[in-house]
């Protein structure tokens, strides 16, 4: 019994840390999808952020410079997608996926001398008083600075999408390019900006992963977190607030897996490693039906619903 309690509280504590990087990537993908595009290159942008964030932090000794570099690298990669899908009208899914492999190639090359190195990177900052709340305090309020920004970003993006001019333009383009154009908006510029911003957030997530969570860089270290983010946007019905729920669910799955490993559960560790992916697939199986109704019109041609 006490083992179960231990696992449960450990899962809660462990859910936030691994969830942050995915949360940023989910925010980024969400912005892009709200503008009517889909970016499977999010995984690649995360890798770029993780790799270049790490390299720059090692070389300059400044984690802030690293985080910034990660954002620039993630945005840079996604701009390739922006050019190809907007100006060359290539297939978004194939282009995005190729972009992920492309990013994997670049980072495997650029990061080859940085594997097996450990850095301080981003360290947890305990928020006085709040971090002392029993059970949840430590989990939520003893994290690195990027975690706190991520908490705030959800509501900020939600307000931004619904109550600002930019957010309105973005959603208008996502619903119908032609109508938005007729209403005097420039759909190309808005979509390019959304893709670049989304890529930057994915890069930020990647940087949080290598600088804040693992403090190391290794080839392909995101292992599908960018693709998980694409799934979480659907699960979250294109809402930044629901996206937070999804990301912490993913983080919780990783936390649970680590806890079960720690208490020595009599299962293959590889089966435990499957948990995060299986849980995401499971929640999508439960909620996709409802989510389909919330899909921006502009995405329906790409993510066609069941026939």
């Amino acid at each position, binding site marked *: 019994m006490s083992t179960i309690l231990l696992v449960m509280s450990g899962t809660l504590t462990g859910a936030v840390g691994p969830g942050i990087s995915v949360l940023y990537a989910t925010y980024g993908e969400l912005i892009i999808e709200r503008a009517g595009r889909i970016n499977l290159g999010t995984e690649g942008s995360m890798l770029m952020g993780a790799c270049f964030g790490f390299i720059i932090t090692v070389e300059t000794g400044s984690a802030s410079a690293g985080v910034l570099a990660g954002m620039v690298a993630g945005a840079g990669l996604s701009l390739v997608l922006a050019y190809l899908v907007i*100006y060359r009208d290539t297939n978004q899914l194939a282009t995005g996926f*190729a972009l992920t492999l492309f990013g994997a190639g670049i980072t*495997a090359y650029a990061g080859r001398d940085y594997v097996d190195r450990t850095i301080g990177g981003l360290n947890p900052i305990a928020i006085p008083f709040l971090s002392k709340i029993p059970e949840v305090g430590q989990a939520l309020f003893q994290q690195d600075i990027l975690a706190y920004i991520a908490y705030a970003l959800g509501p900020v993006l939600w307000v931004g999408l619904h109550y600002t001019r930019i957010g309105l333009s973005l959603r208008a383009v996502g619903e119908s390019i032609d109508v938005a154009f007729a209403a005097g908006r420039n759909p190309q510029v808005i979509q390019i900006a959304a893709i670049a911003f989304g890529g930057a957030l994915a890069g930020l997530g990647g940087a949080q992963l290598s600088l804040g969570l693992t403090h190391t860089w290794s080839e392909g270290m995101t292992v599908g977190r960018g693709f998980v983010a694409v799934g979480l946007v659907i699960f979250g019905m294109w809402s930044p607030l629901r996206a937070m729920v999804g990301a912490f669910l993913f983080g919780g799955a990783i936390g649970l897996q680590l806890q079960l490993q720690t208490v020595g559960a009599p299962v293959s560790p590889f*089966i435990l490693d499957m948990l995060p*992916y299986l849980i995401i697939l499971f929640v999508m199986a439960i909620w996709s039906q409802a989510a389909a109704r919330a899909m921006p019109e502009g995405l329906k041609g790409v993510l066609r619903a069941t026939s």
Partner: protein
Amino acid sequence: MEYGRTLDRAQSIAIDLTAPPMVRSILAIIFAFTVFGIFLAIIGRDPFDAYFKMYEGTLGSKVGISEVGVRMIPFMLTGLAASIPARVGLINVGGEGQLYIGAWAATGVALYFGFGNIWIMLPAMAIAGFIGGALWAGIAILLRNLRNVNEVISTLLSNYVAILFVNVFVFGAWKNPTGFGYPYTSDFATEAILPAIAGTRLHLGLILPAVAVVATFLFLSRTRWGANMRAVGGNPDAARRRGIPVLRYLVIAMLVGGGLAGLAGMSEVAGIQHHLRPGISNSLGFMGFLASWMAGHNPVTLIGTSFLIAVIVVGGDVLQFSGGLPSAAMLILIGLVLFSILGFRKLERKAE
């Protein structure tokens, strides 16, 4: 509408619209190799030397040519695994995972069924591999049709699960007890090994994609079912009104696609590895997906794009051995080739 027209005009200015598709694809490939050459120069490698070494190690020698052939096998099979579902409008990004499950199923047959006869053993492994890959892909189509889960997401995520699934066995129950602790299964008996051409690694598994490509081509272009598939992919609602059983086409296309990726897994363990180990594929299934998109999902063109990717991958291994470049860097070149071909090709369609 007006916006669309602006876009058309902007696009038609830049390019010569008269070149035939073949020529334009070649121009796209040359463009990609040029950009990668510039990248090589920037990182301090002599691009001419690097490309010459790649040529020597691939098309310039008997061993090189056979290695290209060896790589083409999984690329063509996992390429078809994307092409066939694409005909009915499904996107299968799960070739990698389906390959792993096919390899796992074929290995199970090789380890636990001593048929004592190569003519029974190899077909049995192939059938097991096909079924394994098909069932794995079946999960995605099941989730799609019952629960409305988009197949892009489910096939992508199931790749990671499949790789871990294989690890459960090679680190666990199937680990070779005399393997010095390495996570390999026991080596296959001779009856479970695809014979290779003497002095090379090019094995009989080449028959699999050859037959599959010809059969797919004939099926798609010469049968009523092939035409129906196109109708389903083009407009499922219209197809349904014409009395085509849309769901059946979706399911079968996905299962056959997954099965062919599973065959690629069988071919890898029976033809190259001769045992199962972690990471047998290293992105073969992903490359096949890209090969299919480069080929516009045409099974005959797929032969050409698989060849091109095989040359790049084998050439990348050569560059890795001759120092400097990690083989993953070749992903950069493959990405550039795909971007160029996709980017150049669309312009031709705009002209029509």
